[in-house]
């Protein structure tokens, strides 16, 4: 495991950490902030950043892992389609995510045709080589949804369709900000998602909730610098959007990509696993793309799955509370016992962006104080 701090510039890292400590002192009370990006959590864990954070600063990982928030019935839809004989192609992370009765990996083990892809384009290539119905079970946030939109707009073969479980980040930040008892005083937004949407997408949110949002890259220095900016905005009581990742993110974002995204998808309300119903949080195909919408093309007989009782252990999973920042994996009785990456109980233990898996792989508790 990574027990050393590795920075290209340790002196700068130390001085940023000292600045963080000074800012928290000046604020004079414990401060909690939230990031909404699995890659942020990976970098924080991999580079042992938590050891540099002042005690009174709590950096919470929010619902920033798309696999973790893919809801159980969405997994069920993929499982049912696979069991109905449709060929399902999806990202590798999705295979082990538990559904009500089966994961896609379980369905595969019992004979369903499921293939792992890295890019929506591979789904198109697979569909071109067969007459069978090929369904792209598409998960991920807006950054990945634009890639799905691009293949839909590029004249896909007739046997290709999409089961969209894509999610849109900005609305879930509203949910977190409005949670009763939320301690979150500021957000660190994901740099690469903002490369598409632009940093200005967060302006209305800041306006409404009067909490600052800082767009940051996932490099250790980016994260530390982003936190310094965030704490300054909190200390000064000047909530606004700050872009600390200008080399990748502009205020308006990638406009051609946004056009394709919103031409194909519409935001609709839906449940995020463990979190809540998120208004406008799910991306679904617009009616004019019904011909590539697996939900319109097939009758997905969900109740056929639900004659079974849900697995008992799953009821104890606290992924949702972890993503809401109320608890952490150490509070889960199953963490590193019944629930491990090889045999996950909850979705947070499946994905490389899930908090539980990250904490598991980077030594259980990524708080490397001993090495600070």
């Amino acid at each position, binding site marked *: 495991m990574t027990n050393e701090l590795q920075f290209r510039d340790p002196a700068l890292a130390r001085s940023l950490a000292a600045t963080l400590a000074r800012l928290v002192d000046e604020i004079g009370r414990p401060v909690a902030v939230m990031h909404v990006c699995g890659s942020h959590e990976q970098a924080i864990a991999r580079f042992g950043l938590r050891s540099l954070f002042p005690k009174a600063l709590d950096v919470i990982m929010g619902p920033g892992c798309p696999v973790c928030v893919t809801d159980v019935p969405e997994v069920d839809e993929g499982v049912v389609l696979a069991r109905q004989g449709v060929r399902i192609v999806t990202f590798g992370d999705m295979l082990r995510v538990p559904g009500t009765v089966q994961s896609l990996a379980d369905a595969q083990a019992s004979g369903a045709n499921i293939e792992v892809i890295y890019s929506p*384009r591979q789904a198109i290539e697979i569909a071109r080589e067969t007459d069978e119905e090929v369904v792209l079970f598409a998960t991920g946030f807006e950054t990945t949804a634009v890639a799905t939109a691009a293949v839909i707009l590029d004249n896909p073969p007739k046997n290709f369709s999409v089961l969209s479980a894509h999610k849109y980040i900005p609305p879930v930040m509203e949910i977190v900000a409005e949670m009763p008892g939320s301690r979150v005083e500021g957000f660190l937004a994901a740099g*690469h998602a903002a490369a598409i949407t632009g940093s200005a997408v967060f302006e209305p949110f800041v306006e409404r909730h009067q909490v600052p949002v800082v767009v940051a890259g996932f490099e250790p220095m980016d994260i530390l610098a982003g936190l310094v900016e965030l704490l300054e905005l909190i200390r000064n009581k000047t909530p606004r959007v700050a872009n600390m990742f200008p080399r990748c993110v502009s205020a308006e974002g990638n406009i051609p990509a946004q056009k394709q995204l919103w031409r194909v998808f519409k935001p609709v309300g839906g449940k995020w696993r463990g979190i809540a119903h998120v208004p406008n949080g799910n991306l679904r195909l617009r009616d004019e793309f019904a011909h590539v919408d697996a939900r319109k093309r097939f009758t997905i007989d969900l109740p056929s799955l639900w004659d079974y009782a849900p697995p008992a252990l799953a009821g104890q999973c606290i992924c949702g509370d972890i993503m809401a920042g109320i608890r952490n994996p150490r509070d889960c009785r199953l963490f590193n016992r019944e629930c491990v990456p090889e045999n996950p109980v909850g979705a947070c233990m499946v994905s490389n962006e899930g908090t539980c898996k990250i904490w598991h792989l980077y030594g259980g508790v990524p708080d490397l104080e001993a090495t600070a």
Partner: protein
Amino acid sequence: MCLGVPGRVISIHDYTAVVDFWGVRKDVRLDIVDEPVVPGDYILNHVGFAIRRIAPESVAETLELYEMLLRENAGGEDDLMALDVRGEIAGAS
């Protein structure tokens, strides 16, 4: 993943670029990139699509980080970031 792996554009045909990622050449679609891209430019790849042209002045520092991740591989097979970077490179076909 939202890592976005950088690569150098070798050639372009229609909307598809051949891009070099540390010696691995892959096709990357240019449908959604925000600026015109020419051979020699660096782009950020996400699931086989260029999501951003990297400004020339940021190329060096961007590459350096990824090189460090790939080279040091401090966490071995358990290193999620290195795994994701390698996965994105392998899968960008």
